[in-house]
């Protein structure tokens, strides 16, 4: 039994490293088969995976449903638009992350005293607010809507995104294992009790919110370089708020693997549906989401867990602690 348990511990890291190696090799094969679309598709998948996993970093354990993802992603995009020609690529990407971090400290400081639906509505409104203030600024003061973005080869963008994702996975893992990970779950469980046993709930919430936004900003700054032109309606598109949330629910939020699987499957599904059924894709999409919420409340990961338990014949009692949302 002991050997088996040890062996189990290595399954996920080994799979992760294999996937990473394959991804690193991907541009090489894509170039040989002359399929530019493959890299573009993987860019989108990586981008949504980063947004989803960073969303789940904060919203997963705390239960605060943030719909401000588009704000942080959009700030990243705009940072690239403003600084793309001035700064070298890595510095520019970092600036995108820091700008989102700072914005999240402000938004979090204001809105994180709200709970439940009020928090969701406020974060959603913050996207709209930023979008329209920026639009007003561009039209009346700066004179001219939108701005061009410096272009970077797709392969470079792909590798930067991959780097961000690896960094995000390591961060999520370390945070989950630390005492702050436990404290975040206690906030989701009963915030009042958490505060009364010494958890500094305000600081912890705002900092984790900002940390998750940092990664969204990084993703935005690098993704902008593939867009040629951005304006505030492209950058602050509310779909960037909704999709990561739906993807995380779709995959399951109990662990790190859930949001990743959710984002990968969901993004791929979306690409197929858009190309194959452009007129009814949103309809199919909505149906899939409703079915997921009704029949798979713990997402794809929850489904996998229950199948595994059935195969094992119920020998192992369910001792895992999973949130019931």
């Amino acid at each position: 039994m002991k050997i088996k348990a040890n062996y189990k511990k290595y399954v996920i890291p080994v799979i992760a490293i294999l996937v990473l190696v394959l991804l690193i090799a991907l541009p090489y094969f894509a170039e040989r088969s002359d399929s530019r679309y493959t890299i573009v598709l993987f860019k989108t998948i990586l981008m949504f995976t980063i947004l989803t996993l960073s969303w789940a970093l904060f919203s997963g354990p705390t239960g605060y449903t943030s719909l401000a993802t588009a704000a942080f992603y959009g700030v990243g995009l705009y940072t690239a638009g403003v600084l793309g020609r001035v700064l070298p690529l890595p510095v520019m990407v970092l600036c995108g992350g820091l700008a989102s971090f700072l914005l999240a400290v402000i938004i979090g400081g204001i809105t994180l005293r709200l709970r439940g639906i009020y928090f969701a509505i406020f974060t959603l409104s913050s996207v709209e607010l930023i979008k329209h203030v920026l639009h007003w600024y561009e039209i009346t003061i700066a004179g001219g809507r939108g701005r061009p973005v410096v272009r970077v080869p797709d392969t470079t963008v792909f590798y930067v995104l991959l780097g961000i994702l690896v960094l995000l996975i390591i961060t999520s893992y370390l945070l989950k294992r630390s005492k702050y990970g436990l404290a975040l779950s206690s906030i989701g469980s009963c915030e009042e009790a958490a505060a009364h046993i010494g958890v500094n709930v305000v600081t912890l919430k705002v900092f984790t919110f900002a940390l998750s936004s940092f990664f969204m900003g990084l993703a935005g700054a690098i993704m902008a370089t593939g867009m040629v032109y951005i304006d505030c309606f492209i950058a602050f598109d509310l779909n960037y708020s909704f999709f990561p949330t739906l993807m995380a629910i779709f995959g399951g939020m109990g662990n790190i693997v859930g949001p990743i699987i959710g984002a990968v499957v969901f993004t791929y599904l979306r690409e197929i549906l858009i190309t194959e059924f452009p007129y009814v894709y949103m309809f199919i999409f909505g149906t899939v989401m409703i079915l997921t919420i009704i029949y798979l409340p713990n997402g794809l990961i929850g489904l996998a867990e229950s199948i595994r338990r059935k195969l094992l014949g119920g020998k192992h009692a369910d001792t895992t602690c999973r949130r019931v949302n």
Partner: protein
Amino acid sequence: MQILHVEGLTKYFGGLAAVAGVDLQVEKGEILGLIGPNGAGKTTLFNLISGTYAPNAGKIFFDGTKISGMKPNAICRKGLVRTFQSCRVFPEMTVFQNVLLGALFGAPETKTWHQAAAETKEILDFVGLSEFSDTRAGSLTLANQKRVELARALATKPRLLLLDEMMAGLNPTEVGEAMELVTQIREKGITIVMIEHVMKAIMNICNRIIVLHRGQIIAEGTPAEVSTDKTVIEVYLGE
């Protein structure tokens, strides 16, 4: 030696004064009982002392430092912790994780994970929950959940412990065990203020009792004095 000193504490909810100018002293090492009819303001008083609400007027001093206006987490780290009337364990965490959180975040000095885990084990032993260490807290009986909450509070190394109706909903055997536990906690040098409706518990283990009615203190004294006090009897039984 006073450990807690409250003066002129007042809290309004709308036009209603839930706590109206309460003056209160708690001596180091005593068990103080807080009783009164429903809606007398007992829990509100706890909420004010532990920092859940800020008072509209009045001051609270803990061991000489003013704590009114401080956040609950800061008050907890100073050594004043409370439990809740409706049990608030973290249901989907294990008993061990529940108590560990208290040891990691609530104690005045920061601890490593190892130190906190060792202390958690000790405290689980003390309250008699060792066998449930890896059980989900939400799946325990009410009596045991209340023990988890108590253990979690103890893990923060308090000097003053506020217990809000710890014995409500327990059967007579469980009440007896809980009384035993409270006495043992006092023997560790922890001062206790407890809100309680179970009179057997209040009369047997408290050194002193304060009776609250409509947000004001109407009687104060030893259990014997309070139980024969005319105003108290009137308030409880009607004129």
